[in-house]
């Protein structure tokens, strides 16, 4: 296990290969773009919920604690809901706090979905908190978060 862990480098930089990553490490400055801030993520959530404050609970997000490859991080979201016509989870959104853009994806469910559950693979620019925000059919919003450590450049975890 290596102790080398770079957390500030842009994912794009490591995508272009180990040599380029080494160049970036040496401070040669490959082009990287500014990432979103946690404040922008919160703004996005506020826009999504129309100003409603989401409560904690009911929604879950599962991501690996350490993601060696930020280009494809397995992510599962779910919500605690009976999924009946009267009471179901309408949507779950995944929001990044340090990617170039906060919104990653939104899943829309129906009672026919049977479960409010989805699995996807996402890009993580760097180590960060990731939020899942769910809307229930009664209009209530729920939120949760997880932290993903992104290791780069084949240094292992």
């Amino acid at each position, binding site marked *: 296990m290596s102790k080398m862990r770079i957390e500030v480098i842009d994912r794009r930089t490591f995508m272009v290969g180990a040599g380029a990553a080494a160049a970036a490490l040496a401070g040669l400055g490959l082009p990287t773009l500014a990432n979103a801030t946690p404040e922008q993520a919160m703004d996005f959530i506020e826009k999504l919920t129309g100003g409603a404050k989401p409560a904690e609970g009911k929604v879950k997000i599962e991501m690996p604690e350490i993601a060696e490859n930020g280009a494809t991080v397995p992510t599962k979201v779910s919500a605690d809901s009976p999924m009946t016509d009267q009471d179901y989870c309408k949507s779950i959104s995944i929001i990044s706090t340090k990617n170039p853009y906060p919104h*990653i994806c939104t899943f829309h469910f129906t009672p026919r979905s049977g479960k409010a*559950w989805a699995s996807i693979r996402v890009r993580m620019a760097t180590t960060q908190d990731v939020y899942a925000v769910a809307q229930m059919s009664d209009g209530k919003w729920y939120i949760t978060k997880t932290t993903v450590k992104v290791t780069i450049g084949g240094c292992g975890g």
Partner: protein
Amino acid sequence: MAKARVKVPKTAKAGDVITIKTLIKHKMESGNRKDKKTGKKIPRHIIDKFTAKYNGEVFFSSDWEGGVSANPYCAFTCKVDKSGDFEFVWHDEKGEEYKATAKITVG
């Protein structure tokens, strides 16, 4: 041409909640990447919408941004009560659509 693969169970019992796995070949170019040689931004080109139908009814859909990985994988569930068809549509923001279908026998 994007290549799609879907995994739907061939059979199920009425009332079962089945898991469906989908995968499509697409680079999901986020628009944030720069060409190493020219320094120019590579234009954004992503699939922005995925829709799943069971016997004509949309039961699951998803909006995607550049934060979804290349060759997007997406798994989800469906509560089945009769035999029928699944249709999956990936909508590319350039207007192209990719489709896949599957059949299920519900006993």
